[in-house]
């Protein structure tokens, strides 16, 4: 038997090391992000593109949005076509057929919207060409799209009496070339070294020691896994995602992949500080996000270390909940990944959320329902958080009876209306679409667990789709045509129902002239504001879902003896 003191010491060290790797580079990375979008001179490729495509003018928010939507629509159409046609295309050594129309729709929406929900299993359904040219490309550009929207909003807040929020083409190009691609190259190299396959071989058949056969899959996995972690995409090369020993073979690969989830989202918080030339604003948001992240992590560490009451009579070597967790990661690093992937709208997993204990399963669910802004997706987390900041400022303004202002910009009806539209996407996608499918389909047929947990699986699926997270209580039978269509719709609502209001707010704020701060205003960087912001998050974000949470995970937890 091992010494329990030693046990907790090394696990804690692993958790702290990953948190440090993810969060400590944030100030430096934030400066880099600000620099590449604002101060970098256009390189030769960008100059040529700008010349051919007439990118000379900066865009107002409507043009920015138009360029973004046209680009995303084109990506969707081409990806959809590729997935349908993969059976007739090269780089398909397993001769996998094209996807069905509903699955292709779901998958194309999923990757264009940076959700990366997997209604398919990569190694059984997708050719190497579909993975590389289809999903791999979207991993880069959907992440860069989210980053561009955040940058446009930062500019909107920072600029004075301006009609422009930047140029979508330039922002997308720079995000990919100066941020995502270099980091992916480095991470992919380490992952290959650690054992993640990177080849174009056909699957091999091995004669197992026990006299059976085992298929050994291949493919250009490392390059894709690197960007899926960095771009908060989360769609695994293999079906079981980063729990698969090929996708995440060692403790080092786990450490880097896990840290990569939060790296860029945390950097964006500090990038905002550079835009508004007030580091304290970034620090306040950073503290709020970190506190919520650590709260969830604490609950998970506690819940996964407890023996299920239903197994109390068994004499087991330890009381840890090992179901759906890998030996090489252990409990603590699985809990950490779960907290981070749900906070950051990444959605990759190294342990199975469906088999978390009842209280443990509540954590990723709540993280997603809060609206994916505990660091959140690349770019998406910050623009989501800033919506809540505007609401918190508005509420505090009402309380003290002054016209609310954020960083000198008056917050008026127009901004609040748009912010509410964005916030309503979560209940719309989850509660309305979720209950609609329950009426249209047979709920028992898609849930794999009885009782309240079945409802939790349902709730998790629609929350994950609308929040553009992509993780799942994976026993949920997501591959059915009806679910494919409606979950695809939920992803679209969750993505563009937020992006459009955010760009509208960016345009509106950019056009305003700042006014001098008055002493009667609540400073937006102090502890009082952090408390107010957290309260607004919990009230507006979670209260919508309180009843359904009670009927799902809470009822499950309380029903155990």
């Amino acid at each position: 038997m091992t010494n329990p003191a030693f046990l907790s010491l090394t696990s804690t060290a692993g958790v702290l090391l990953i948190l440090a790797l993810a969060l400590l580079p944030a100030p430096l990375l934030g400066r880099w992000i600000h620099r590449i979008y604002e101060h970098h001179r256009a390189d030769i490729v960008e100059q040529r593109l700008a010349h051919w495509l007439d990118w000379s003018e900066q865009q107002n928010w409507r043009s920015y949005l138009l360029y973004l939507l046209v680009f995303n629509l084109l990506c969707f159409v081409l990806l959809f076509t590729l997935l349908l046609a993969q059976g007739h295309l090269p780089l398909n050594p397993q001769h996998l057929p094209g996807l069905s129309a509903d699955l292709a729709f779901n998958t194309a929406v999923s990757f264009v919207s940076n959700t990366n929900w997997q209604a398919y299993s990569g190694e059984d359904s997708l050719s190497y060409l579909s993975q590389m040219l289809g999903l791999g490309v979207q991993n880069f550009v959907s992440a860069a799209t989210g980053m561009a929207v955040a940058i446009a909003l930062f500019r909107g807040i920072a600029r004075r009496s301006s009609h422009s929020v930047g140029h979508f083409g330039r922002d997308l190009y720079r995000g990919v070339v100066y941020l995502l691609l270099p980091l992916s190259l480095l991470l992919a190299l380490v992952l290959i070294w650690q054992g993640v396959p990177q080849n174009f071989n056909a699957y091999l058949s091995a004669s197992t020691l026990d006299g059976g056969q085992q298929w050994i899959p291949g493919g250009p996995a490392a390059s894709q896994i690197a960007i899926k972690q960095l771009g908060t995409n989360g769609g695994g090369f293999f079906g079981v995602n980063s729990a698969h020993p090929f996708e995440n073979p060692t403790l080092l690969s786990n450490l880097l992949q896990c840290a990569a989830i939060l790296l860029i989202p945390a950097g964006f918080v500090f990038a905002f500080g550079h835009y508004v030339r007030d580091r304290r604003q970034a620090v306040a948001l950073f503290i709020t996000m970190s506190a919520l992240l650590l709260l969830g992590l604490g609950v998970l560490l506690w819940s996964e270390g407890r023996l299920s009451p239903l197994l109390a009579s068994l004499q087991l070597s330890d009381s840890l909940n090992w179901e759906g967790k890998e030996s090489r990661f252990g409990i603590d690093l699985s809990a950490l990944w779960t907290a981070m992937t749900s906070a950051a709208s990444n959605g990759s997993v190294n342990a199975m959320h469906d088999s978390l204990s009842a209280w443990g399963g509540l954590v990723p669910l709540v993280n997603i329902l809060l609206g994916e802004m505990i660091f959140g997706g690349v770019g998406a987390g910050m623009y989501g958080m800033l919506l809540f900041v505007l609401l918190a400022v508005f509420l505090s303004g009402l309380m003290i009876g002054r016209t609310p202002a954020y960083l000198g910009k008056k917050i008026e009806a127009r901004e609040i209306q748009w912010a509410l539209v964005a916030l309503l996407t979560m209940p719309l996608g989850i509660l309305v679409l979720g209950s609609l499918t329950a009426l249209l389909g047979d709920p028992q047929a898609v849930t794999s667990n009885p009782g309240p947990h079945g409802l939790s699986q349902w709730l998790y699926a629609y929350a994950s789709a609308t929040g553009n997270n992509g993780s799942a209580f994976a026993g949920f039978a997501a591959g059915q045509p009806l679910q494919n269509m409606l979950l695809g719709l939920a992803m679209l609502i969750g993505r563009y129902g937020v992006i459009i209001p955010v760009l509208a707010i960016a345009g509106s704020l950019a056009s305003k002239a700042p006014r001098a701060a008055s002493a009667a205003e609540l400073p937006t960087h102090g502890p009082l504001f952090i408390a107010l912001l957290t309260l607004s998050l919990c009230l507006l974000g979670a209260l919508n879902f309180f009843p359904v949470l009670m009927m799902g995970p809470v009822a499950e937890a309380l029903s155990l003896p």
Partner: protein
Amino acid sequence: MTIHTPCEQNPSSEAVAAQTTIEHGSRWHSAIKTAFALWLLATVVCGLAYPLLMTGIGQLLFPWQSNGSLLFDSQHRLRGSALLGQQFSAAGYFHGRPSASDYKNGAASNLAQSNPALVAEIRQRYAYWHQQRPDQPVPSQLVYASASGLDPEIDLSTALYQAPLVATARQVPVADVEALVQQLAQRTGREEPIVNVLQLNMALDTDELLSVR
């Protein structure tokens, strides 16, 4: 009074409005052109050049890892991958984690802690091991299924628990089996050293003294 800050780069609102009206038609046109150009560039750079470059570097620097960490026996037969666990049910082999797919592909049980089906599965596995070694608590890793269904490793203590059973089946001294387990245990930085079950069983079969069955 409002403080007006002029910005040289940006024309006045009237000018923007006029310009937008004139360019309304061509705005769609250039948006589509830009979308195609960006998609093409991303496809060539991120979809082709990047994975191909990584494949080239991987095959050059880490050929074994890049191709799936394959394990061959002395007759050059492919026996598996060092990273993928295998199903072991024969006596005389160490067992890995229970797998929802019997190690055929990546799969998890996805059963909830409250699900009676999970409790039944765990109790059944527990009964099997408890019958084998009634004197010891059963290692958790042998009753709970892994996340991937392909987990290649178990903790050192979970392997040592099985050592007497393997030794009896092979009719060899327990100490020799335990020595082999200790020799193959890898420190990972996690709480406990872990042992790769496939490599351990392959080592058992190739060891001159232990391979007698």
